[in-house]
């Protein structure tokens, strides 16, 4: 018997609301199949399954909000029948027994597994004061967020205007706030920037796009994405996750693309295996991703597993972007606008299209020295666009 549990569709997600099942008991499911639509605070996400089998039982009903890790369905493996099924121990959610509770001599009430401990009074007060409860550190037993914690936080950021109705935007804002706050709280960022000449790349791109229908034209963003992915092959310490006090390098480069949404907020779904795909394919996937991100129909794996994020604010006109790393990732690469600048080349002053390429990286994993070499590698890759 296989248990299908609600996956975490992002570091900031601790619960989700089931909107729709795409399967019914008795259905055969295969790896990667979309089995459910779950509303995270950010979007309605198609949730895929990574096991094969026959759906036995659906444990959660549409409309239910459940913590990450809650079993949602059971599947029979090949050869299993409901009668002979091997029952896995029913683990309600990813157990995160707190050290404090385990060490305590008196039995504590079962931990609200997977859920931060926030007292009802703290939650209510935070709402009244417009404090984002997710950003408040807990000082109570087992790290619970207490009323005093909220009031202290409110005192520190009185500017925050109280929010009235909670809507999707507010929820997304809350989620982004939580993730970014956590990032800034936990990740010691360092920042580097490097101006990268783009004459060759622009010229190559113009040539490559000549004769293509508009819909099939490549964007510089795709070129940049591919270059980042290839640079990561030499600098694996920029690609992966920092979890439980250790860095876990990722085998492939699933590059998260920061996509701003029209109604506000942003998501950073991944394009998988960017290093292995052609620019044309990447272009197709990027277009699809942007479209689906804005329609709110992203897939769970896209949201859950970017190994690095690339943000391109060139279109918005800025020259340089210093990003905040999306935990548990360890690096973020930023691209600004391509600007014609005075440039000395071979001793002669000329005009060069330049893009400022920046790196925000996790100092727990890499150092500025390696970061600098990563940016240098990226610069070199962009000088040979035909090889991308």
């Amino acid at each position, binding site marked *: 018997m296989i248990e299908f549990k609600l996956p975490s569709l992002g570091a900031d997600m601790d619960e989700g609301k089931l909107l729709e099942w795409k399967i019914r008991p008795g259905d055969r499911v295969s790896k990667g199949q979309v089995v459910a639509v779950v509303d995270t605070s950010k979007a309605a996400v198609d949730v895929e399954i990574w096991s094969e089998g026959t759906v036995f039982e659906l444990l959660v009903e549409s409309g239910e909000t459940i913590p990450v890790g809650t079993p949602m369905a059971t599947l029979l493996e090949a050869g299993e029948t409901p009668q002979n099924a091997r029952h896995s121990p029913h683990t309600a959610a990813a157990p995160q027994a707190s050290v404090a509770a385990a060490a*305590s001599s*008196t039995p504590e*009430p079962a931990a609200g597994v997977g859920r931060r401990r926030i*007292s*009802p*009074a*703290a*939650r*209510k007060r935070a709402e009244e004061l417009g404090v984002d409860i997710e950003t408040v550190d807990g*000082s*109570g*037993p087992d790290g*619970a967020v*207490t*009323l*005093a914690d909220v009031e202290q936080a409110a005192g520190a950021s009185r500017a925050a205007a109280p929010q009235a109705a909670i809507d999707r935007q507010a929820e997304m804002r809350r989620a982004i706030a939580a993730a970014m706050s956590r990032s800034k709280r936990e990740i010691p960022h360092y920042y580097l920037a490097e101006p990268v000449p783009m004459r060759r790349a622009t010229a190559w791109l113009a040539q490559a796009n000549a004769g293509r229908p508009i819909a099939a034209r490549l964007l510089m963003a795709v070129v940049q994405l591919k270059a980042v992915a290839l640079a990561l092959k030499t600098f694996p310490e920029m690609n992966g996750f920092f979890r439980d006090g250790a860095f876990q390098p990722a085998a492939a480069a699933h590059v998260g693309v920061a996509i701003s949404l029209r109604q506000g907020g942003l998501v950073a779904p991944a394009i998988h295996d960017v290093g292995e795909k052609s620019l044309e394919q990447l272009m197709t996937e990027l277009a699809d991703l942007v479209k689906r991100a804005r329609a709110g129909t992203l897939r769970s794996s896209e949201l859950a597993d970017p190994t690095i994020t690339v943000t391109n604010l060139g279109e918005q006109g800025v020259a340089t972007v210093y990003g905040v790393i999306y935990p548990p990732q360890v690096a973020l690469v930023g691209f600004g606008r391509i600007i014609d600048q005075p440039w000395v080349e071979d001793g002669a002053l000329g005009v060069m299209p330049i893009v400022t390429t920046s790196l925000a990286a996790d100092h727990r994993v890499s150092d500025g020295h390696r970061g600098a070499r990563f940016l240098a590698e990226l610069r070199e890759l962009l000088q040979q666009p035909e090889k991308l």
Partner: protein
Amino acid sequence: MKMTYREAVRQAMHEALVADPRVFLMGEDVGKYGGSYACSLGFLEEFGPERIRDTPLSELGFVGAGIGAALGGLRPIVEVMTVNFSLLALDQIVNTAATLRHMSGGQFSVPLVVRMATGAGRQLAAQHSHSLENWYAHIPGIKVLAPATVADARGMLAPALADPDPVIIFEHAQLYNLEGEPAEDGHCDIATAALHREGADVSLVTYGGSLPKTLAAAGQLAAEGIAAEVIDLRVLRPLDMATIFHSVRKTHKAVVVDEGWKSGSLAAEVLARLAEECFYELDAPPARVCSAEVPIPYARHLEEAALPQPARIVAAVRRMLGK
């Protein structure tokens, strides 16, 4: 004027016997013996055997007779030696006293007062030490009082006798030697909980024999810089939740101290109502300090370990505050 709890109970009964010829005292050894806790010493001589009525060992019979006498126009005070023995009269209290008014469609009230000792602490072991106040507090149709102070021991009887419905008064046996001051006029209400100590950090809710222990714990907590508010329930049915809610809305934390066992306890009732009515005011999971789930043992150290003690109350508060 300072007096003991025992003397306060005695004075209250004396006053009632003098004031109203319909009042009489009935129970095992209330007369010649002077009361098993000496609360009616000298009464037989003063009021005579008709009004100070020694009964045979027939809890069901004489509690039931008290109900009949109340119906017949008297104002009986029925003394049952301990709450454990009162189980022999449970049928009459629950099936008759509490129901008569209702099942007669409001025609008959039962103005009966039943007094009984309750609680542990004297190494009397498992048949004389229990705290079953909540069994009675479960029953619609009766009022349940738990005087925890000399003032209440002195003051609660008169309004209980004036009440047209059955009232059960629990006197914790450990309190009889407690010294204190009665109210100036000797009177008090039997409707409200009492605030014994103010504090902003945590509300300690208790009753009966656990009040002195809770006050001791609050004193200790004050020395540690934790300001505990102490509320004495006083009336176990109907509960004065307004006073508790008011306190918890201030402190946002509640610990209930109850000598009953935790399972199905009064403490459970208080916590449930806090969860129902005060959920969004709570800044920490509410806690209970109750007796261990064991019949009260004889051996002194085991008996002490089984009961709520100041140290356990202090520990519960510290744990709640993360200290």
